[in-house]
């Protein structure tokens, strides 16, 4: 019962922050970034953690969502209270459509080669956007600022809830079975293709959602915002917080975002420290802090007898 209460309280807090000067703008921005990162981390965890693949292209889905949303809010939609949710849904859907294509490619390819395909996907998205004038090309776009704390919180809750439901269902079991042993999974009648499509599409959808939220808070997006560095940051979050764990996704996103802000004074040295942390992590704790473990709060009640989670 604790979790729903926390959610309501959290949402109330976010709404309050919108109208009362409880926290300053800078902190608000950081909190929104934490939310966006949680969505990115949890969505990538579906493919990299639960399904055990190695996708380096998640920034590509973020880019798709960001640009789709930007086009919606700059050029197509009139200003209204529905503007942000529509744009976010559109962003997620566009990303999911491409995620579906990537899923098809994953039928015949796994492991390193799939990683390479996701890399190619990322680079293609980036170079494609750079060449499309309608999307501002290399100069970027300036979408209106629409994301606020309550909306960010809302989307974080929706993302975690849906992913949690998916994981603790037969589809989630299929996804982890693929990670554990794809041949055995096939022999047990697991619908492997369906599971891969679901995993990639859902992961891409929420990656797009995060991208859309980002576009509408950052007031500037360009192709460089969504390159391999961004993908690496998301990877750091996943492998820091813990693979195949929702609590881990939250943990990784929070620690990373705060660390990133705290190390701001280091300038470019910041991107030396962060990957160094990643390397040390890989050597000493490759699955992350909460790798393959889960907080009981996130489990559906019927699963509460088990200590170890997928």
């Amino acid at each position, binding site marked *: 019962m604790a979790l729903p209460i926390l959610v309501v309280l959290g949402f109330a807090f976010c709404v309050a922050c919108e109208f009362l000067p409880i926290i300053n703008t800078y902190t608000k921005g950081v909190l929104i970034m934490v939310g966006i990162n949680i969505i990115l981390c949890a969505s990538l965890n579906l493919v990299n953690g639960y399904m055990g693949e190695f996708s380096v292209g998640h920034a590509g889905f973020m880019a798709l969502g960001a640009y789709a949303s930007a086009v919606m809010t700059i050029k197509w939609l009139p200003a209204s209270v529905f503007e942000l949710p529509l744009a976010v849904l559109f962003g997620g859907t566009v990303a999911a459509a491409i995620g579906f294509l990537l899923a098809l*490619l994953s039928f015949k390819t796994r492991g390193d080669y799939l990683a390479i395909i996701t890399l190619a996907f990322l680079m*293609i998205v980036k170079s494609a956007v750079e060449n499309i004038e309608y999307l501002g090309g290399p100069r970027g776009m300036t979408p209106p600022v629409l994301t606020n704390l309550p909306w960010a919180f809302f989307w974080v809750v929706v993302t975690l809830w849906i992913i949690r439901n998916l994981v603790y269902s037969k589809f989630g079991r299929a996804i982890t079975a693929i990670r554990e042993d794809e*041949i055995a999974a096939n022999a047990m009648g697991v619908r492997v293709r369906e599971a891969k499509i679901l995993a990639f599409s859902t992961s891409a959808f929420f990656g797009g959602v995060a991208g859309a939220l980002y576009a509408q808070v950052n007031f500037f997006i360009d192709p460089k915002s969504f390159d391999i560095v961004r993908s690496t940051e998301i990877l750091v979050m996943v*492998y820091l917080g813990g693979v195949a764990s929702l609590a881990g996704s939250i943990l990784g996103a929070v620690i990373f975002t705060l660390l990133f802000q705290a190390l701001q004074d280091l300038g470019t040295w910041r*991107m*030396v420290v962060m990957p160094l942390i990643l*390397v040390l992590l890989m050597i000493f704790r490759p699955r992350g802090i909460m790798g393959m473990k889960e907080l009981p709060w996130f489990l559906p009640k019927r699963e509460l007898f088990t200590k170890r989670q997928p």
Partner: protein
Amino acid sequence: MLYYIAQQTINAIQLGSIYALIALGYSMVYGVLVMINFAHSDLFMLGAFACLLLATMLPVQLPFVVILLLVMAIIGLLGALIERVAYRPLRGAPRVSAIITALGCGLVIQNTTLSLSPYPKYMPELFNSRTLTFSGLTITTLQILIIGISFGLMVALDFLIRKTRYGMAMRAISFDVRTVPLMGIPVNRIISLTFLVGAGLGGAAGMLYGLAYPQISSGIGILIGWKAFIAAVIGGIGSIRGAVLGGFLLGLVEVMAVAFTDSSYRDLIAYSLLLLILVFKPYGLLGQAPNQKV
């Protein structure tokens, strides 16, 4: 028109040979350890900077060949060092960990260089290049030098792999890294050697790149090095011949793409080519599917 194509082909060969040198480093390491050494592209970048430092920071002007050998040695040792410190502890760990570590190492190298040298630097002329013309085509002696050195290094590598005991050991390890030590082959030493040679080639490529395109920055690792990675994958990562094939193929495609279309499409075409090839030949042109016992 024919002249234009022929002229561009010369450029393609130059670019392709640089790609091939870098791609060889990727393929050698993958062949032996089944690991994508994402740090390799940044070692290439360091090769260019090492050459710059050696050419400008020393009180005495070293001859060209000495600089080349020094660059190869320095970067080669650096590559072997990274293997020893960052990859070897992860030899038994899931492969994902090794790849991420490589990514991390690459980023550390790249951003350290960026922090120390935020603005692009210019490679001094180490070689008095003259322009030759024959039957309407122009080629500089620098281009000839670059292509020549690349080919020389590739031939030397081929000799190393096919005709020496080290090469045989390398190939043996690429088949089964666990039983090979039982036959008395010093696996760790061979792996170190593989990284040494691979990184050395990458460093040489960096130097040659700096001579061909004198403006160098910390970002050329991602710019050029990752392209070479694509080349290695197109050819079939793990395959030495594939790396060379992929390198020249990519060089040709890129140069022709820039020559005949808008140059901003260059990356798009390169990566789309990769995707296209992988869709039809998932393991690259000369690559082989890994065998899985059921």
